[in-house]
């Protein structure tokens, strides 16, 4: 797939700003370091030349930011969407979270995004600067010269099992139309399902006990856009991280996974932002896999206005107890 350059994005945005189609541009800029690229709103061309970033670390899904930005903005916002972001975009439209009329969506092709932890595993800590071209060049404060690596060796997990390079929503597409891929994204879920319950419990106890309840997964999730969140309720008893036992955060994660079940587009942002590297996407994928198996194939965000499995029913659905008796499940 042909990459689009940063200059092409700026040129596109500048021309749309100049002819008055849009009044602001939602894209990415450098955060504290070269690898923590954060979403940013631009209103002028000079600003974009100075700050706009488009490289292998622009994993952030911009769809969610439209909810807040379109409320404040006068006129249209231009937003750059990677293929996986367009699913979240559609899902948010289905839930009437923002006004489609106030957005001008430009689809940009994506070759996958880099995982900083994998980069650090090769280059070592203390990253001073990163250059993304054909290869990713990383120089650290401890070493002379730069470590070079191929993007395909340091892909985010979600990009390794990319479900679709196809943009399902856009006003304009840069580059060529991609395809829906056969991603094998349920392989890891199947591996866990094949374990005994005790092994699964041990696995999740180990993973979820790392949780520090920073709420990053909730804050970044495009499906988590409730104005008042259930976890902000101090009376619930679960709003804080209290060192009582090491597996107390399971409730938070079960509730959150269930809350986004049927609406999760599997964009993988939760796992990307998790500072403790908990594979949270596995919980969401388990729900997606179950719903596909029990209620027919369903991809949230594929089109606008589709009915999710959990707000629908048929007369001959399987009984709750029968869910364990499907093929391949161990007892």
């Amino acid at each position: 797939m042909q990459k689009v350059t940063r200059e092409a994005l700026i040129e596109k945005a500048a021309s749309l700003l100049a002819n008055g189609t849009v009044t602001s541009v939602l894209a990415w800029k450098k955060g504290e370091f070269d690898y923590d690229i954060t979403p940013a709103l631009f209103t002028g061309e000079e600003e974009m030349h100075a700050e706009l970033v488009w490289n292998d670390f622009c994993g952030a899904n911009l769809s969610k930011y439209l909810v807040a930005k379109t409320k404040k903005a006068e006129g249209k916002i231009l937003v750059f969407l990677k293929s996986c972001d367009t699913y979240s975009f559609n899902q948010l439209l289905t839930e009437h979270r923002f006004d489609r009329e106030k957005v001008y969506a430009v689809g940009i092709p994506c070759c996958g995004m880099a995982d900083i932890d994998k980069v650090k595993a090769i280059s070592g800590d203390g990253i001073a600067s990163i250059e993304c071209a054909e290869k990713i060049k990383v120089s650290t404060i401890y070493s002379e010269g730069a470590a070079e690596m191929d993007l395909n060796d340091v892909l985010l997990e979600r990009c390794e099992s990319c479900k679709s390079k196809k943009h399902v929503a856009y006003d304009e597409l840069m580059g060529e139309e991609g395809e829906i891929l056969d991603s094998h994204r349920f392989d890891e879920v199947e591996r866990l399902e094949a374990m005994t319950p005790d092994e699964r419990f041990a696995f999740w106890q180990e993973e979820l006990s790392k949780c520090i309840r920073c709420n990053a997964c909730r804050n970044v999730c495009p499906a988590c856009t409730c104005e008042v969140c259930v976890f902000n309720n101090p009376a619930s008893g679960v709003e804080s991280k209290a060192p009582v036992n090491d597996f107390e955060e399971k409730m938070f994660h079960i509730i959150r996974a269930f809350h986004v079940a049927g609406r999760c587009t599997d964009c993988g942002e939760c796992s990307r932002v998790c500072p403790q590297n908990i594979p949270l996407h596995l919980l969401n994928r388990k729900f997606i896999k179950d719903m596909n198996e029990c209620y027919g194939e369903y991809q949230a965000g594929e089109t606008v206005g589709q009915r999710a499995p959990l707000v629908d029913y048929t007369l001959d659905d399987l009984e709750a107890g029968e869910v364990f008796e499907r093929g391949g499940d161990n007892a």
Partner: protein
Amino acid sequence: MQVKEFKPLIVAFCCNWCSYAGADLAGNNRADYPADVKIIRLPCSCRVNPMFILKAFQKGADGVILCGCLPGDCHYTSGNYYTRRRMAMLFSMLDFLGIERERTRVEWVSAAEGAKFAATMNDFVATVKALGENKRLEDLRCKK
């Protein structure tokens, strides 16, 4: 030394129109079921948010059973069909996390089935009793 017998705490969510009336009938008929079962009456089995079930476990329940009208008999036409999907997904997720799958159950009990209500509760309490205390889903922050 005498070992104290384990008394499980069972929460039964019952819909007002069928299962709660079924429980009533079980009582009228003098059908025996253990006092470990604490019934919570709801307008419809569909009222049960999955969080209710998790909350019950957090607060120290050892087993949670959800009873509603037989499919097709819902007082609100379709409530229990939604319940069925939700609970199937929730139970599958709890199993995925390694929680014992016998601790949760959905049973459809009509208002005329007092005997079935008692039999279901006897069976469920015996199952949970055999499993022992709920350790995997407990939340010490919420226990008093």
